[in-house]
């Protein structure tokens, strides 16, 4: 106990403008990445053409530019870049949430069985002919993801005594194995070689089919999801010492767990249904963000969202240009970059 009585200091409240530097830098980085996504590809397009196209489309500016360039930019590259950014942000933030709530550094959005369920849903529709053409592959994937999540969550609940978090990881593994086996079964039973190759591309993440229709879903969902998670930053911090400690400092743990895990599941299900399952983003980006700004979620959540967005836009550029005349599944790129990056983080984390 200190014997000196300290009087509480009175601090004048002035707004510290320097606090805006990093958020602004992040937004600039996302726009720069999207601009790069517009310019780079099979045909190189200048930044000026890109700006003119956007001005033409949004304000009918009437600039005279090549219609093919304009079509590639507006119908193909811009929606693709925006969806990539939304997807990267959503997956990275989902990873942050799950690593905090499950207190497991290896947790990623797919640990809830979502990716495996989405795959099963997708192959059911595209190969087994479920729904007789009335439902799209992405609807099937979304349905599959949600069903898998409900099964995993139910299993975790039934199996949980007090160690709920560990049960979730185990239930997720069990669920993923089951749905992956179902997917393999359907492919082995009814797919032709061509279909199998197509589904393989989809399973590894594919942005080729992305249009404005997908932007309208992905972008608002990602923004809203990240925002709601951000509102829970302080609660997520409280999970540092486990659920009991979180409850002790006043977090309504049940409500927070249910809200945040449901949001994560929904975000991931929507993203997987649009672009397939892109690995490593939800696992590696949160660690990279922690490496930069520390473990406090108020800084970690926006940082992870920004890095995730930028990373996936850049990964998509690489996927499009690395082999001339061919588009690589983006999941291949994220894994090729992600696996070594993860190794480096692991080694550095030990020191």
């Amino acid at each position: 106990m200190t014997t000196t009585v300290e009087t509480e200091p009175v601090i004048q409240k002035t707004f510290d403008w320097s606090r805006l530097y990093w958020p602004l830098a992040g937004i600039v980085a996302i726009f720069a990445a999207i601009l790069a996504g517009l310019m780079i590809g099979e045909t190189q397009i200048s930044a000026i053409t890109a700006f003119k196209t956007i001005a033409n489309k949004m304000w009918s500016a009437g600039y005279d530019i090549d219609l093919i360039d304009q079509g590639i930019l507006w119908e193909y590259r811009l929606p693709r870049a925006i969806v990539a950014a939304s997807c990267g942000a959503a997956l990275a933030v989902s990873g942050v949430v799950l690593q905090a709530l499950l207190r497991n550094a290896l947790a990623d959005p797919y640990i809830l069985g979502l990716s495996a369920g989405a795959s099963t849903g997708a192959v059911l529709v595209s190969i087994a002919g479920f729904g007789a053409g009335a439902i799209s592959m992405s609807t099937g994937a979304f349905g599959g993801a949600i069903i898998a999540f409900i099964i995993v969550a139910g299993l975790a609940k039934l199996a949980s005594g007090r160690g709920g978090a560990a049960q979730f990881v185990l239930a997720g593994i069990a669920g993923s194995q089951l749905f992956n086996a179902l997917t393999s079964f359907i492919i082995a039973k009814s797919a032709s070689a061509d279909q199998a190759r197509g589904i393989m591309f989809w399973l590894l993440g594919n942005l080729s089919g992305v249009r404005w229709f997908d932007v309208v879903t992905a972008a608002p969902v990602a923004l809203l999801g990240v925002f709601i998670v951000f509102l829970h930053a302080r609660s997520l911090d409280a999970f540092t010492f486990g659920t009991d400690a979180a409850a002790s400092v006043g977090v309504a743990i049940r409500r927070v767990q249910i809200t945040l895990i449901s949001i994560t599941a929904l975000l991931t299900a929507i993203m997987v249904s649009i672009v397939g399952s892109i690995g490593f983003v939800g696992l590696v980006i949160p660690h990279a963000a922690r490496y930069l700004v520390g473990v406090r979620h108020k800084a970690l959540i926006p940082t992870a969202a920004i890095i995730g967005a930028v990373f996936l836009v850049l990964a998509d550029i690489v996927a499009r240009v690395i082999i001339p005349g061919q588009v690589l599944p983006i999941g291949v790129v994220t894994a090729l970059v992600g696996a070594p990056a993860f190794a480096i983080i692991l080694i550095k984390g030990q020191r």
Partner: protein
Amino acid sequence: MKLEAQNLTWSARQLPIVSDVSVSIKSGEMFGLIGPNGSGKSTLMRMLAGLSKPQKGVVELDGISLKQTSRRQIAQKLAFVEQQAETQDLIKVRDAVELGRTCWLSAISPWSAHDTYIVDTALRSVDMYHMANRSWHTLSGGERQRVHIARALAQEPSVLLLDEPTNHLDISYQVSILDLVTQLDTTTVVALHDLNQAFKCDRIGVMQAGKMIAIGTPEEILKPKFLEEVFGVCVHTLIDPNNGKTVLSFHSVSSGREHNMRQVI
């Protein structure tokens, strides 16, 4: 603030862990909880803290049931220090203590200079202020426990519950943490495994096989005959020549017999 428990019962798979425990802890009191391993101390502490819901019975804070109180409101009145809560996160000492402010903050009332002041005060009162920027994983067990106590103090609680706060600690930390707890003005409930430490409490409750078998002052409870029955060891009292205080000395029952035998021979 008064903490009252009535007829608390909790069992796991039909096995009673705590059965029908009632206890009333007075405002400002330091209440010690002793008992052998597995006697239900930790489970009772968790129910008192509102972390486990009693299957029967109620816990009341100043007459209001914990069931009718939100987690946030409970945390503003009552703080709980678990046995050795750990983390893998690269968290700093100050971050850990700041968690204690969670129950006072919201979107409408964000972090302010007042919160920083409370955290500073809590850090000073456990003598960890100079280590505020140290990483959690560089701390010793005693330092970590002090940080947990500072986190609890940052909640500005009226009631503080500590589950074996000196467990696994070096003797110097055991003494300093217990002194710190004794000096606090809050109502305190502390589970203890070292019976000599229990002398510092105002009152002591004794748990055995899930039941509260006795409640009284240290002088009433810490008697050799009674402790022998509860803990199954031979107990002798000694007088510390330095301050004239009573000290308990323990021997296993068999070695005690041997001792008596030798005397007979």
